[in-house]
């Protein structure tokens, strides 16, 4: 039992160091590369977001698997979490569906600059952006 715990402590230390390194990596990457990409090319935004989220997901995995002991848990907890992930995916796809007009965007939404958002605004806006639909 004591040996087992010592093993755990060693794992916690390694995970701690890995999390710190990944944090530095995320920040450094966003400073040196992604800000430039962000400002120069609209289509590259999604790549930089994907990389940022990928690192965050790996960090979350390290925390969940080791600190929360999900790498060695009972089936009922995995089942509960599988249901949660399923619901979460639906939740995240709702705005994406909306964006691609799978759901209809609402018209006449007031904007911060005093304009009103409607479908006319979008087509007008797209002409300037070169259109990305």
């Amino acid at each position, binding site marked *: 039992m004591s040996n087992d715990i010592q093993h755990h402590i060693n794992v916690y230390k390694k995970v701690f160091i890995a999390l710190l390194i990944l944090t530095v990596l995320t920040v450094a990457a*966003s400073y040196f590369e992604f800000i430039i990409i962000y400002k120069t090319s609209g289509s590259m935004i999604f790549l930089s977001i994907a990389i940022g989220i990928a690192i965050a997901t790996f960090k979350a995995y390290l925390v969940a698997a080791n*600190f929360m002991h999900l790498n060695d848990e009972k089936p009922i*907890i995995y089942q509960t979490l599988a249901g949660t992930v399923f619901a979460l995916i639906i939740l995240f796809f709702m*705005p994406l569906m909306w964006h691609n007009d799978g759901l209809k965007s609402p018209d006449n939404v007031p904007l911060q*600059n005093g304009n009103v958002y409607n479908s006319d605004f979008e087509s007008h806006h797209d002409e300037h952006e070169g259109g990305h639909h």
Partner: protein
Amino acid sequence: MKIPYNEEIRPDTGLYNAKLGIWLFLASEVMLFGGLFSAYILLRLTDPNWMNYGQDALNVPLATLNTVVLITSSVTMVMSWVSLKLKDLKKYKMYMGATLLCSFIFLIIKYFEYTAKFDHGLYPSTNNFLAVYFTITGLHGLHIIGGIAVNGYFYGPGIKMWDSEPERFTNRIEIAGLYWHFVDLVWIFLFPALYLL
């Protein structure tokens, strides 16, 4: 009357009851934060003015420091549980104290971030990004305060249980730890989503 399955394993789930309880609670928490993240994605994709909201004016160094503080607190939290497993109450107090200290440091840094925004006249009502930023980090901050209340209790008066029911107390710390790691986990996503991307 003794409440069943506080320490002993329930045969059908293979867990003591509180463990399943906290995971069900955390599942609901995933959906709570998930809803707000989903709103963030929607606003960001559909708001044509998003680029003008000054997202890159957020204080990245302070937020990075807060990330390190929270990761550290997660490690000290799990170490406080390990210390109880090793029947070392002194070390438990040390690690739990460190966890509480980190929690307060996180809130103090957050306080400086918020007041700097307010001083520049930036409020949740200013624009969509700030509305998202204050709502999600505010909710996360409330979770930190909730964690301080629970961990503070187990650091202070709640520690008495160690003398009468040490195994049950150890389980309580494991449950409090699961909650605390979740709060850390939410921040791991919040940090790049709000500050960096």
